[in-house]
């Protein structure tokens, strides 16, 4: 029997879910994110049995990297939950959230949904009401975990509704690296991933966090909220990577909540075909003497649409905050459309906060320079786009994941090579 406190959460969320209409997100200008082609009634939370072997896509993308722990969810079911035995002795927990509710109830209850709410729209409510499986990570005080802790959400059949919830609690002065992958196989048809992610870095903790999303060409709708809270003198480097999804609407917030907390937030997206990506990030500074450094870079091919909006919000009393946000977007096809909007709300004085945004195309002078060295136009374009993203890939500080990201970007560029080369050529001519 699930504990009553969790039942209360789910009940309130279910009420919100039934009350809330199917949302449409509009902004000034051309931008609308609508869920017209999503029929919730045709979706179901599919269950799967755990098997000896992990699905091929999951195996390929994780690669040979040694891991500290692994939780894999396929559809609605946890199909793998593993932790390095040496870490268990140190009190580290890596398991599904369902299991953690039973075996570590007090800890989960203390932190569950602290920074998330079912009251943030229909899909936040859906995930809070219906989540199954999920993931729980706890690294206790002063413990250092060397190998990455890996979480995977996989969707590999049409008609799947996946309600996900990850809760990570990194104790005082603890250190770890967490990777959450959202992967989809190339099936025909529609699916939904409604995700919730919350991470709490306690005082003095140091966390490397990466999100890697590649749903592939299937019609996966990803509507998720991810929130990271950083306590006193703790540091989180967060790298969300978006490399594929039919429709993605995500809210990503990073909060420096106490004095001396520090964060680096580095994002990357690459959209192709008719993908639609809508990202809203907030760097929220709630205490004085905090620091932030945000860089987001994107590229668009095909008929895709991508909107990145990045807000720096410094609340009253958060004096002596130093933060900046840069966003760049590169259009690589005639028909792609996007925007990148940085903004700023500062409610106190004595802070330094700056932001900048560019939307542009590849520079013909750079292409000429490379061609003058014998490099073909196509290779020059590919190299320049890869070089443009390299700053972000470096910030991953994770060789295994960096290799995966570089490979996917190279594949996407190769797939779009003709249109990209032609587009850049037309601009020049």
């Amino acid at each position, binding site marked *: 029997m699930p504990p009553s406190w969790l039942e209360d959460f789910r009940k309130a969320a279910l009420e919100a879910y039934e009350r809330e209409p199917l949302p449409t997100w509009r902004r000034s200008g051309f931008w609308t994110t609508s869920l017209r082609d999503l029929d919730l009634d045709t979706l179901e939370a599919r269950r799967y049995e755990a098997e000896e072997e992990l699905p091929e896509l999951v195996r390929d993308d994780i690669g040979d990297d040694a891991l500290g722990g692994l939780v894999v969810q396929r559809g609605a079911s946890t199909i793998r939950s593993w932790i390095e035995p040496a870490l268990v002795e140190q009190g580290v927990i890596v398991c599904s959230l369902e299991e953690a509710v039973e075996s570590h109830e007090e800890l989960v209850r203390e932190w569950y949904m602290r920074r998330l709410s079912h009251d943030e729209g229909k899909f936040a409510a859906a995930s809070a009401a219906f989540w199954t499986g999920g993931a729980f990570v706890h690294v206790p005080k002063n413990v250092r975990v060397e190998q990455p802790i890996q979480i995977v959400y996989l969707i590999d059949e049409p008609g799947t509704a996946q309600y996900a919830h990850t809760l990570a609690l990194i104790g005082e002065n603890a250190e770890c690296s967490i990777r959450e992958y959202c992967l989809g196989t190339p099936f025909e048809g529609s699916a939904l991933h409604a995700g919730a992610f919350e991470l709490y870095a306690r005082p003095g903790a140091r966390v490397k966090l990466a999100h890697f999303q590649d749903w592939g060409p299937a019609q996966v709708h990803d509507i998720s909220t991810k929130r990271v809270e950083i306590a006193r003198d703790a540091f989180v480097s967060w790298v969300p990577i978006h490399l594929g999804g039919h429709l993605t609407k995500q809210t990503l917030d990073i909060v420096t909540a106490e004095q001396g907390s520090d964060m680096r937030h580095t994002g990357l997206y690459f959209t192709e075909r008719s993908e639609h990506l809508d990202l809203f990030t907030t760097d929220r500074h709630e205490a004085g003497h905090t620091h932030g450094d945000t860089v987001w870079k994107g590229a668009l091919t095909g008929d895709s649409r991508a909107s990145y909006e990045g807000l720096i919000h410094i609340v009253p009393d958060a004096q002596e905050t130093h933060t900046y946000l840069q966003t760049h977007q590169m259009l690589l096809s005639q028909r792609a459309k996007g925007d990148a909007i940085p903004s700023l709300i500062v409610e106190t004085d004595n802070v330094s906060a700056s932001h900048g945004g560019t939307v542009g195309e590849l520079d013909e002078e750079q292409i000429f*320079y490379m061609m003058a060295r014998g*490099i073909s136009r196509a*290779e020059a374009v590919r*190299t320049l786009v*890869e070089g443009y993203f390299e700053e972000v890939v470096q910030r991953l500080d994770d060789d295994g994941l960096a290799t995966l990201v570089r490979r996917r970007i190279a594949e996407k560029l190769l797939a779009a090579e003709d249109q990209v080369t032609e587009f850049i050529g037309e601009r*020049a001519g």
Partner: protein
Amino acid sequence: MSLEIQNLHVRIEEREILHGVNLKVSKGETHALMGPNGSGKSTLANTIMGNPNYEVTEGKILLDGEDLTEAAPDERARAGLFLAFQYPATIPGVSVANFLRMAVNARREEPIKVKDFGKVLREKVEMLKIDKEFVSRYLNEGFSGGEKKRAEILQLAMLKPDIAVLDETDSGLDIDALRIVSDGVNAMRGPDMGALIITHYTRILDYVKPEFVHIMLDGRIVQEGGPELADKLEDQGYDFIREEVAAGNAA
């Protein structure tokens, strides 16, 4: 093998800059092309390399007899041409070493072995007195003027073209950097390479001695001769040449 420019007319944005330039640079020769600002020197350099912003309306560019007038820049490079840029582009995220390997491989059937490439690169880096860290930096990102020019000469040394055009490689260099760059160019000189050194000043010619000097004014080559022509220019300046040309035209 030689680069031959025949009656070259070049336009940029509806304005004709070069009005019929003839020039021949053969392997083993070093030529200097001198002229004041705005005379069309850089236009010639960019047109030789195929910069799409410049339109050839008449005339030909031949390399070893092959017509490259309409060829894409990468074909020209693979055919044996090289341009050291006056203002090299920045290539973020691509290290000097990776860029060089890409350029070296662009003109080979089989990619060069990493070990062989490393060995050649080390040699050239030492020759040009370049800091070893330099090759791990992103190409031209945050480089000083002198570093950019050195990166150009490093590329020249690695790519070993048949004909190299150096566009104002001397500009913006202090005397030490100028000497290092000149030593690099001199080390490359020989029967295997022809060079066209484009410059406003005679300074670089104290270090890299040309056999042939051409003077360009208003989109035409107006005087040609040996090294003595550069000395004359040093003593008397472009205005003197301009007057001579005007007098010649009047006569």
